[in-house]
């Protein structure tokens, strides 16, 4: 009986091309879009668009401007006219992420630079500042040295002629020595904790985020069939028989779990092929995680739809639940960008559990100890939803 229902669901989906596209093509596509966006905005790949105005017009300010324009770390463009007003206008209009006004010679003792940024792009100001300092240290080390000397000179009680001459010679040497490749002249060396082609953790994050989002979305669409069965009298027909609606609910649940598995496969295979996320290598833990997440989505969808009296009610409720859970659980915006209280609330969504489990497996190479709790929570939530659906289906007899 249960197999008959699984077959009905499979044939129904197979013959509905729109639903097929929505179920198996759209999720990898959305994943690719999300991963492209976030892989490029949370790592080293961020290329800030910087509007530069050289108001000071000194030789060193000219060298800095040229170095910024040449730098691959930032998309710097000089503005015309070269005024602070023009930079403000471009930033305000959103034509530049941030602006730099060089109002004095870079080696002078005061504050020669002004960073102009839109408060709605909070990360732009510190990032622009860091990029300018990086370019300054790498391309104009002599200027950095002369500024240091200028700052220290009063504390040292002034420089002797000889000391001043030595400082000038050192600065000239620095200016004429090309910087080593990859050396930004700063204090720090960097070490990545994980090898990856691009994006790394963010890709693993979004693979999980899109998987659970679409698992729930597709499960809701599938579960809406319960409403259709009530509307068309199929439920009446079955309730007049021996088996009732039990096998229908169980059959739908099993089909939706299977559908979630195939859907997840499409997303994670894309992640492996395009971004090199190590899915196959972690298949032993990926599979139970995916089964638990799919079971959770299927059970919740069936339980929620069963609570409704009409298809319209069910559609409204499912849209509400899908969007709210996705927003809180981290399928739309990475959880680490959320305030702590919202991250805590997120644990009440299957999304957070699924996302964290996938990240633990695929990004941090964690073992079963890091994910067994997520498996338990997701499976329990799914079974609870299934139980609710069964109880309510039995009550339909009355």
């Amino acid at each position, binding site marked *: 009986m249960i197999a*008959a229902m699984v077959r*009905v669901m499979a*044939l129904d989906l197979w013959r509905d091309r729109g639903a097929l596209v929505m179920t198996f093509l759209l999720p990898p596509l959305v994943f690719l879009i999300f991963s492209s966006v976030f892989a490029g905005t949370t790592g080293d790949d961020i290329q800030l668009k910087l509007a530069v105005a050289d108001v000071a017009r000194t030789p060193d300010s000219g060298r800095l401007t040229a170095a910024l324009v040449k730098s691959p770390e930032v998309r710097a463009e000089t503005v015309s006219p070269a005024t602070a007003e023009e930079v403000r206008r471009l930033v305000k209009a959103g034509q530049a992420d941030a602006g730099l006004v060089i109002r004095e010679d870079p080696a002078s003792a005061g504050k020669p630079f002004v960073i102009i940024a839109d408060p709605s792009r909070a990360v732009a100001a510190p990032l622009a500042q860091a990029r300018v300092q990086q370019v300054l240290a790498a391309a104009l080390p002599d200027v950095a040295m002369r500024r240091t000397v200028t700052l220290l000179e009063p504390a040292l009680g002034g420089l002797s002629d000889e000391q001043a001459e030595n400082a000038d010679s050192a600065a000239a040497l620095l200016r004429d020595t090309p910087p080593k490749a990859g050396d930004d002249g700063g204090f720090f060396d960097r070490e990545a904790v994980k090898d990856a082609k691009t994006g790394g953790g963010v890709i693993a994050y979004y693979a999980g985020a899109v998987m659970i989002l679409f698992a729930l979305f597709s499960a809701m669409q599938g579960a809406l069939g319960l409403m259709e069965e009530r509307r068309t*009298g199929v439920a*009446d*027909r079955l309730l007049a028989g021996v088996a009732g609606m039990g*096998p*229908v609910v169980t059959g739908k649940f099993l089909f939706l779990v299977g559908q979630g598995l195939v859907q997840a496969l499409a997303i994670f295979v894309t992640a492996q092929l395009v971004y090199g996320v190590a899915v196959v290598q972690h298949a032993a833990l990926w599979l139970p995680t995916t089964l638990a997440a799919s079971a959770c989505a299927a059970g919740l969808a069936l339980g929620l739809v069963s609570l409704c009296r009409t298809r319209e009610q069910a559609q409204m409720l499912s849209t509400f639940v899908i969007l709210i859970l996705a927003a809180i659980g981290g399928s739309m915006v990475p959880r680490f960008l959320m305030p702590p209280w919202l991250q805590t609330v997120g644990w009440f969504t299957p999304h957070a559990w699924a996302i964290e489990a996938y990240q633990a497996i695929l990004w941090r190479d964690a073992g079963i100890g890091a994910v067994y709790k997520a498996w338990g929570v997701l499976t329990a939530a799914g079974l609870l939803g299934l139980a609710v659906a069964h109880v309510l289906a039995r009550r339909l007899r009355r």
Partner: protein
Amino acid sequence: MTAEPASRDPILTVTGAVHAYGGRPVLRAVDLTLRPGEIYALLGPNGAGKTTLIRTICGRIRPDGGQVLLKGRDPARVSAARAGLGLVPQEIALYPNLTVAENIQTFAALAGTPRAAMAAAVQRALELTRTVDRAHVPVKHLSGGYQRRANIAAAIVHEPSLLILDEPTVGVDLDAREAVDQVIRGLRDLGVAVLMTTHDLDQAGALADRVGFLNEGQMVLEGEPKALIAEAFGAQMEILVHLSEEVDAAGEIQLAAEGLERTRRAHVWSRLDADGYAAAGRLDKRLRKVGLTPREIRVREPSLANLFTLVAERKLAA
């Protein structure tokens, strides 16, 4: 088709069924018995209690009083009692993207048909409902008539001894209705007991071996259609007056004075008269005199529709 086609023991026995919703009685001591190979039409206006009675027979409602037995077992308590029951809902209760054969197979499986017997059961249901030629067409692409027959096929694939049809021909044309009627007669001939609700009184009169009129939860009249009509109307005939156009208020008063009542058909009025054709002739003359020239006057034997009107208007003693 049925396990015991030769037996004349009742398949369905409803005895003194009583039920109320929130204190409002919907079934008042209803009795109903149905034997193999019998077609029973359950008639009555909307809200008469037909749906509640059917839900009670299907075991979905446990009556507040009285008893419902399917082959001697209570369908609300013993799920196995429902194994011999097939329900054809008013809607097309099928999966539209699946073919007719796939639908029948699905409902056969959900009714517990063994895998080994599946193909034969599906083929038999297709043949009985004359849908073999559309077996591999998705239900959504079928005509209304074929959809109705496929709807029946899904309910008989597990060979029920009692088939309940809720408005089996609503919304179909005359040819499609005749095809459905043939299917129902064929099932009756195989020994299936058929209980149907319908608002199509012509269909009920043509098909049913017995009819029951349910009104306000009471079975007010039950028996063979011809016998009931004869008992209610005796030698009276129905005179049907077809007018060319709608009459004004004065005309309505004239028609009422002649004992004519408006029927459901436009511009058609009727009355019962023991004098039949002679009365029709006199009526024609009187109407012409007052300027209400009939386009046609017909005389016919009273039908279930006349009986239904009496029941609905409570002009008949229970």
